């Protein structure tokens, strides 16, 4: 048994029996803190979709969201011994992923300063589905500030509360609320002519 574990490659996907036993997230966290890479891999599996959504709300493209998720999980893995297992792992991870995404946006801004204006990438998988409203929406989203865009997506698309968004982005709840209000007003104004054409 010990030999079998020793020969398992680092970060191999968890065995099916792990999930069959109904191991809770907290147990995975504790096991991962004790050095179990398989337990951390299970946490990746459990949280990667939410982590992707958080990152995607902040960055401008699908590819950047993937990079931010990867960075976020790496930071979380390194900081795992500082995580208190009595708090929700998802919220902690989302904060780390959000920070990784914000960091990526800052780095991209510095790099792309002299390049073409930024655009919000539409989903890579269904180009045929795009219509005028979506095209204009993607365009209008670039007119919002990074924070306004993140707040409106995290709230209206992902369903996070103002408090959760504030905690993720490191801003007060009231600021998240006001950013949402301004982002909605700006989008309404920018999209108004698209609607009036219909």
């Amino acid at each position: 048994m010990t030999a079998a574990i020793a020969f398992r490659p680092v970060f191999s996907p968890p065995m099916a029996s792990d999930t069959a036993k109904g191991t809770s997230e907290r147990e995975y966290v504790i096991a991962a803190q004790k050095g179990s890479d398989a337990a951390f891999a299970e946490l990746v599996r459990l949280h990667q979709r939410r982590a992707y959504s958080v990152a995607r709300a902040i960055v401008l493209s699908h590819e950047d969201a993937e990079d931010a998720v990867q960075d976020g999980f790496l930071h979380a893995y390194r900081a795992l011994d500082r995580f208190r297992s009595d708090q929700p792992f998802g919220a902690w991870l989302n904060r780390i992923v959000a920070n990784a995404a914000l960091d990526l946006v800052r780095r991209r801004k510095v790099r792309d300063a002299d390049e073409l204006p930024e655009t919000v990438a539409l989903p890579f998988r269904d180009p045929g589905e795009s219509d005028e409203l979506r095209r204009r929406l993607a365009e209008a989203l670039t007119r919002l500030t990074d924070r306004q865009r993140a707040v409106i997506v995290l709230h209206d698309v992902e369903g996070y509360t103002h408090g959760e968004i504030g905690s993720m982005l490191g801003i007060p709840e009231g600021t998240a609320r006001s950013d949402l209000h301004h982002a909605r007003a700006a989008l309404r104004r920018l999209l108004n002519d698209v609607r009036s054409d219909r």
Partner: protein
Amino acid sequence: MTDHLKLHDYREDDDTTRALRKVYAAPEGETYWRTLEARILSGLALGASVRLRWWDELDRWMRPALVAAAVVLLAAGVAMFRAHQVEQEVAYEAMLTPAPSALPVETAVRPVLQEQRETTFRYLMTP
């Protein structure tokens, strides 16, 4: 002004939200998520193997170093305060204690000299 007072049509926001959800929809399909999971895990394996780079090591020592620096600063502050206090006490006491030069000088006339003076005086007074 009237625009602000006009009741907002929330169906417009619903349209925007629906469009937003399409723009930001997460990829579907288990294959995609398995691929992303594998990518994250390989990144972790790579990150774990190179995690003890000098800046990570530096990062690890950052907190103890900051605490040590704070303790040293505090100790230096206390020492400086104490030194200043002692200096002040010395200055205060020096003010209250008169300097040796200010002490009254007790003069004494040498008996030999006094005798000579009296002899001279008697000589002069004697008719």
